[in-house]
């Protein structure tokens, strides 16, 4: 073990905490701008350290590194240490987290400039990155849970950053409570793991997973998956994410698009061998993921809040990742996770730029024609929209296509139909994705401007990070290109007798650290055929969106609105899921709590127990009050009585 390198990783992981402390404690002493610069620098330095380590890791295959920091928990037979696991998976994830975070920190300097409590903001943001790194780098599942809870806390703090408005504070609470439900399942899963494996270490769990009975594996994995649905906003626990959009936009970009919500996918990938033990769970993950993707994509079409559209889009894209994980295409899931982090963070930051330009306006019906006013933003938004729509040659085309292909060729012995159903839902979702994103783009940036304020382009400090992200999501795709497209591109190279190793670079990159399920026979011609399908679907969706929304108001849209008013309304109200949850869970829970409060708290505790204690105290006090009256002679009398008693007993002996 290389001593300097392990120190490097520890420093890189702890730096964000340092920034959080600095901003949190000494925030009063420094200026707003300096606070932002400190926060950005800590993350930036952390990123650079991870890059150094990454270069080392790629050169030396002697991974994974386990970096032991200290002992922590000794509970019965097992032990959980504070130690970090640095393998290719966690390093790539850390690179993504720190890189995107650093850009968003810089963006925040511009976006949050005029806000109050900017130091608190940067302190929370740094704290978030720190916990996220703990989650990613953790060597055992218990330490991962610490990071898991930490990011949940920071998410709560940042959604409720403007806590003085009730709606925002409530959204923060909702996010926290919904996450608690998932976390309960996650804890139960951890406890089951601990009782069956007697260890918390990821490597030992993955090594020993094959010995596990299928039923136990099913229970463990399904509990962990429920935990993941809470954190990664899948059905049924996705309801908090759209509400979380009331937080500052950079927070939505960082926490609710790029990093925290992908923690569930990361966790499943980390425990890949364990999940492979239960095909039932994999089928459930695949179906839930693809259904979530479809479900939220339909909602995204009807929403009018620019951030809500992106929030549902995030849920939908996370569904893609889960489908891939369910098809045990973990590298495809991770690849889509990384590309999604880039383009969705960029989309959110661009949305923030639009909102900034319009001084807080979020309703897309009151935008339009912003192309003229915001040339940079609109150009990048166009690129990002094409990317998420899955149009080549941008990154999401490669990653989404890989997922679609892997899901299609997947075979599930427990639920044989699952891959095909899942694939159908995902291909419809691809179409809907292109549709809703083109609707968003054309409604916001083309047509006539409907607002009254004059929009202004964002400052450089906000634009430069988005430019970097744009470059990333535009060129990152080929790294993970699947075999089909790779083979097409390699044909010219083959002619010259060279092998470019273009195929699946990303998979080879993370491959050694994640679970694989034998070798899947790759059918190149099938994959090329499927690429054509998804490209056609993407273009169809995009062009339909362009046809419907480019020239506003469009007569076709009017007709659709009138004919499908009822359906639209149901979808616009998010299928009444919030209302159903409210009726089924929140209200009964409220009444049960209320009656328990009335019965146990009011009657038994307050009246009987507390009442008794109060009476006893009162009577004792009443009796003792006699001695404390301040009259000299009474005090002497009491002293004399005491003396008398003393003397009596002494005489008695």
């Amino acid at each position, binding site marked *: 073990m290389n001593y300097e390198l392990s120190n490097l990783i520890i420093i890189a992981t702890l730096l964000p905490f340092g920034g959080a402390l600095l901003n949190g404690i000494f925030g009063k002493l420094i200026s707003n701008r300096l606070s932002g610069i400190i926060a950005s620098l800590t993350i930036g330095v952390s990123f650079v350290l991870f890059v150094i380590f990454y270069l080392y890791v790629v050169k030396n295959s002697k991974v994974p590194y386990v970096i032991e920091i200290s002992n922590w928990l000794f509970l019965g037979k097992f032990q959980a240490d504070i130690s970090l696991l640095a393998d290719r998976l966690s390093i790539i994830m850390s690179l993504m987290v720190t890189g995107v975070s650093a850009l968003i920190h810089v963006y925040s300097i511009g976006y949050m400039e005029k806000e109050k409590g900017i130091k608190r903001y940067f302190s929370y943001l740094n704290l978030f990155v720190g916990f996220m790194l703990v989650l990613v780098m953790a060597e055992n599942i218990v330490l991962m849970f610490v990071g898991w809870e930490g990011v949940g806390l920071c998410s709560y703090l940042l959604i409720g950053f403007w806590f003085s408005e009730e709606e925002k504070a409530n959204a923060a609470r909702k996010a926290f409570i919904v996450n608690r439900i998932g976390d309960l399942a996650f804890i139960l899963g951890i406890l089951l793991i601990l009782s069956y494996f007697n260890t918390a270490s990821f490597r030992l769990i993955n090594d020993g997973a094959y010995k596990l009975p299928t039923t136990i594996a099913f229970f463990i994995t399904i509990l962990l998956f429920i935990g993941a649905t809470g954190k990664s906003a899948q059905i049924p626990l996705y309801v908090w994410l759209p509400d979380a959009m009331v937080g500052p936009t950079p927070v939505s970009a960082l926490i609710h698009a790029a990093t925290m919500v992908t923690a569930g996918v990361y966790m499943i990938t980390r425990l890949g061998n364990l999940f492979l033990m239960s095909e039932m769970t994999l089928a459930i993950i695949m179906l839930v993921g693809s259904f979530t993707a479809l479900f939220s994509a339909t909602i995204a079409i009807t929403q009018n809040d620019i951030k809500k559209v992106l929030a549902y889009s995030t849920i939908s894209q996370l569904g893609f990742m889960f489908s891939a994980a369910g098809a045990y295409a973990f590298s495809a899931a991770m690849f889509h996770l990384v590309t999604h982090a880039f383009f969705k963070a960029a989309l959110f930051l661009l949305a923030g730029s639009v909102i900034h330009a319009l001084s807080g306006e979020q309703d897309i019906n009151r935008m339009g024609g912003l192309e003229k006013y915001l040339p940079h933003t609109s150009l990048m938004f166009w690129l990002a929209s094409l990317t998420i729509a899955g149009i080549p040659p941008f990154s999401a085309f490669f990653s989404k296509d890989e997922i679609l292909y892997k899901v299609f060729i997947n075979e599930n012995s427990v639920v044989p139909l699952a891959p095909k159903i899942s694939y159908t839902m995902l291909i419809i979702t691809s179409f809907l994705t292109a549709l809703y994103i083109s609707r968003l783009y054309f409604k916001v940036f083309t047509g006539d401007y409907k607002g009254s304020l004059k929009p202004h382009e964002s400052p450089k400090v906000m634009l430069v990070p988005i430019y970097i992200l744009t470059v990333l999501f535009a060129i990152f795709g080929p790294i993970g290109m699947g075999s089909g497209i790779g083979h097409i591109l390699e044909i010219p190279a083959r002619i010259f007798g060279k092998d470019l190793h273009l195929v699946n670079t990303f998979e080879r990159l993370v491959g050694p650290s994640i679970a694989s399920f034998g070798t899947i026979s790759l059918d190149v011609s099938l994959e090329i055929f499927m690429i054509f399908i998804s490209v056609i679907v993407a273009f169809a969706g995009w062009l339909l969106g362009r046809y419907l929304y480019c020239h506003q108001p469009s007569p076709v849209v009017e007709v659709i609105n009138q004919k499908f008013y009822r359906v639209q309304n149901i979808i616009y109200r998010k299928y009444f899921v919030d209302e159903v949850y409210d009726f089924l869970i929140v209200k009964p829970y409220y009444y049960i709590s209320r009656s328990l409060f009335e019965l146990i708290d009011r009657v038994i505790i307050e009246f009987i127990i507390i009442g008794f204690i109060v009476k006893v105290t009162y009577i004792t006090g009443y009796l003792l009050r006699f001695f*404390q*009256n*301040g*009259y*000299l*002679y009474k*005090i*002497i*009398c009491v002293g*004399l009585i005491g003396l008398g008693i003393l003397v009596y007993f002494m005489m008695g002996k």
Partner: protein
Amino acid sequence: MIYHYVVLSLILFSLGLITVIVRRNLIVILIGIEFMLNSVGILFVSYARFYNNYIGEFVALVIMLIAACEMAIGLSIVVAMFRIYGSVKSNDIRELKN
């Protein structure tokens, strides 16, 4: 023989104690304390005589000395209290309550 002295001392002590308890005037209370001290002095002297041990008489002298000091301090406290509260009645001064 010693009996009479002890009874005298007891009577004096009781008188002093009753004075302290019953009277409200701080100066009179001080006089009561002086009574009690002196009754103990008498007891010491008489027992010293009875046992032919002169140390008891020295103790009586020490008690007188302490009584003189105590009286000086006590009286000055009373004067100070009179300046603050405008009264030397013990019932008017109930600071001990708090």
